[in-house]
């Protein structure tokens, strides 16, 4: 047992750090500092640079375009990305549907979908939740009925509604769980379907969330015709893919490296803000105690994740223990946003999103860190709800780990 990185891992860290420093787009950095919503191209610019380098999908097997990194190297990579405040690579293609495709799809499907997923030419949206199917995902109702088209080929006719679909306004394709057998037990009549969002009958409507952002959407399907060859894995076996995807989604969800960066930011902010007594907030015993507690809890999470990585390295794969990482990781992310807002004091209140641009010469109101503090705090409440709410994660641990 030891905590040392090998010389190879240390060299790897140097290499990726230098690459990020040289290649991270300055234009993207500027958008991030503005704090405005990012355009599709902003997300894609960094994705494409990494795709070209072969680093966009760290966990993929090399035969499908992964870089062949060890779990420790992937950990280092995520630390370096966070350290550089790099925009995260969107998970829908790389972390979610990609692994489902290379694990369950036919060779033709792999050849068709994996390369454009890697390159960023397909922007994937995730069609899981429905208005009546949240934590009880298997109760989903979107129907896919089989029929033979005028061209003699087999199709599904899809009708229904998905919701909370993140960034679907940019989506090229959506992977959906659909009900193909309404008579079967609820988990047994589901199929995993890839749908071209340009198909007639697909409508995307925005949902505006608490921070004022347009991040999620409703996606409606009205008599959408989907070729049967767009189904991944067997008909009515989609739940297998769904569960596989959720377990994959949880690994890396702890977000340790980004939370470390978040605590560094709180320390900076608290050094700039003043406490009631006129001294820097960082010297306020109550406030610094909150930071200290957060740091300690993050250390506990970090070493729990490292232990999980080590057992993955030993070939055990991400188990239900990754639910622990999801619960604690999201709690810590939320506490960080709480402290940023708290530190911002009175200037947590002004709201700027969509406010007429000042034409570049008006003085900014309040400190920079305060501008996004409240919207971010509101937005990050989502983390304990998405990806299987933290209560569902507890159910998973109760059943799979504790045998209850």
């Amino acid at each position, binding site marked *: *047992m*030891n*905590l*040392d*990185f*090998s010389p190879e*891992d240390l060299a790897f860290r140097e290499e990726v750090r230098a690459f990020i420093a040289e290649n991270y787009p300055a234009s993207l950095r500027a958008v991030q500092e503005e704090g405005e919503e990012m355009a599709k191209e902003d997300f894609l610019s960094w994705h494409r640079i990494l795709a070209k380098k072969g680093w966009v999908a760290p966990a993929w097997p090399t035969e499908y375009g992964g870089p062949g990194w060890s779990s*420790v190297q992937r950990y280092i990579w995520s630390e370096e990305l966070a350290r550089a405040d790099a925009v995260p690579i969107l998970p829908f293609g790389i972390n979610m549907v990609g692994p489902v495709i290379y694990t369950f799809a036919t060779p033709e499907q792999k050849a068709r979908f994996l390369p454009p997923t890697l390159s960023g030419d397909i922007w994937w949206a995730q069609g899981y939740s429905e208005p009546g199917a949240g934590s009880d995902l298997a109760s989903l109702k979107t129907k896919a009925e089989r029929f033979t088209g005028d061209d003699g080929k087999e199709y599904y006719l899809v009708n229904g509604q998905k919701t909370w679909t993140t960034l679907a306004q940019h989506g090229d394709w959506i992977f959906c769980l659909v009900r193909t057998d309404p008579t079967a037990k609820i988990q047994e009549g589901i199929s995993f379907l890839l749908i071209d969002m340009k198909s007639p009958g697909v409508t995307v409507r925005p949902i505006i969330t608490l921070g004022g952002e347009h991040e999620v959407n409703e996606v409606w399907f009205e008599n959408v015709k989907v070729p049967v060859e767009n189904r991944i894995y067997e008909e009515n076996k989609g739940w297998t893919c769904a569960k596989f995807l959720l377990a994959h989604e949880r690994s890396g969800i702890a977000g340790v490296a980004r939370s470390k960066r978040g605590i560094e930011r709180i320390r900076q902010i608290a050094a700039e803000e003043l406490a009631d*007594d006129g*001294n*820097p907030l*960082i*010297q*306020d*015993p109550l406030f*610094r*105690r909150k*930071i*200290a*507690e957060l*740091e*300690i*809890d993050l*250390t*506990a*999470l970090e*070493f*729990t994740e*490292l*232990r999980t*990585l*080590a*057992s993955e390295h*030993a070939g055990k794969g991400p188990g239900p*223990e990754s639910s*622990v990482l999801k*619960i*604690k990781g999201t709690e810590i992310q939320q506490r960080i946003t709480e402290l940023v807002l708290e530190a911002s004091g009175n200037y947590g209140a002004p709201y700027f999103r969509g406010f007429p641009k000042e034409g570049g010469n008006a003085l900014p109101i309040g400190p920079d860190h305060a501008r996004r503090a409240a919207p971010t705090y509101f937005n990050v409440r989502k983390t304990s709800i998405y990806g299987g709410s933290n*209560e569902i994660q*507890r*159910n998973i*641990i*109760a059943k799979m*780990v*504790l*045998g*209850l």
Partner: protein
Amino acid sequence: MDFNFSEEQSMLRDTIASYLQDKYDFETRRKIVSSESGWRADYWKAFAEELGILGAPFSEELGGLGGGALDNMIVMEEFGKALVIEPYLGTVVIGGGFLKHSGHASAADHIASIVAGEMVVAFAYAEPQGRYTWSDLKTTATKDGSGWVLNGHKAVVVGAPFASHLIVTARTGGSQREASGVSVFLVDKHAKGVTTRDYPTVDGGRASEVYFENVSIPADALIGAEGAGLPLVEKVLDEATAAVCAEGVGVMRKLHEGTLDYAKQRKQFGTAISNFQVLQHRMVDMFIELEQSVSMTYMATLKLDESDAERAKAVSSAKVRIGRALKFCGQNAIQIHGGMGMTDELAIGHYFKRGTIIEGLFGSVDHHLTRYERLSFGKAA
């Protein structure tokens, strides 16, 4: 980066676990706790001779098994699971720790007698007024010829009734709370002028108030440098704190396991209470606390040889997490056991009691949080 145990370490764990399973079941422990001496000297001999574990963290040159802090961690976790009373912590971790780090001329001989089970040590560091400030000392050691004369009162010296020797902190200079002027001595408990008031502790152990009245000790009783002993005390107590974190993990495993078992067999409203989601989530939260405590114990143990500041930060952060986790797991174990959790008859309450004492041992959650904070931010305004 590696979180696996070596073959030797796994063997050590198996050896202890199977011995304790055989000889240290809960009923046997109950008898030990209520016996006159409060411990089993014959078990201590067996630890030395049959199992050889008293040499676990010492190098082979010192007659040990060639291990280190990780071996202490393993022993202490297993001791935690069985609520072992016998003083491995005081003797091997603390006594051995002082001798190992001090560069004392006779360190090797003393360690040899620890490994052989002959020297049993208790650490007399706390004083009635001192709380968790290790430099707050009224006990004095005054030069007398080539030796020293000790005077003072040490509080709640855990394991002192079993000990042959005491390691004592005393002032050889400086004012009552000052960092400098602290010295460490190895004292024969049966030396003239040492008196003790022995008593049981709430967790089944034994401790003493120890009084020194003009106790003459030889020059070579001094462990480490005269007047500059505080850094050594801090280092050894950090090692001891990491060790009790491991013991706490053992205790928590039993609290969690015992609660799961009970909830699965206890029926109310026509079903096992483990079927109630409100209790399931509570037991999941206990599991999360436990897993994080394991992680923190590994982390702290693996950082014991880093710089003083890094070591102290690592150990204090671990003690904060484990202190909180012990409270959460202990209280909820009792709650989920309901009325049965309140009885002396069941083991679960005894794990709760030991956990509660570990929570405050070598510094409470607040003490370690403050220490962490000071190291992480500098002094408060």
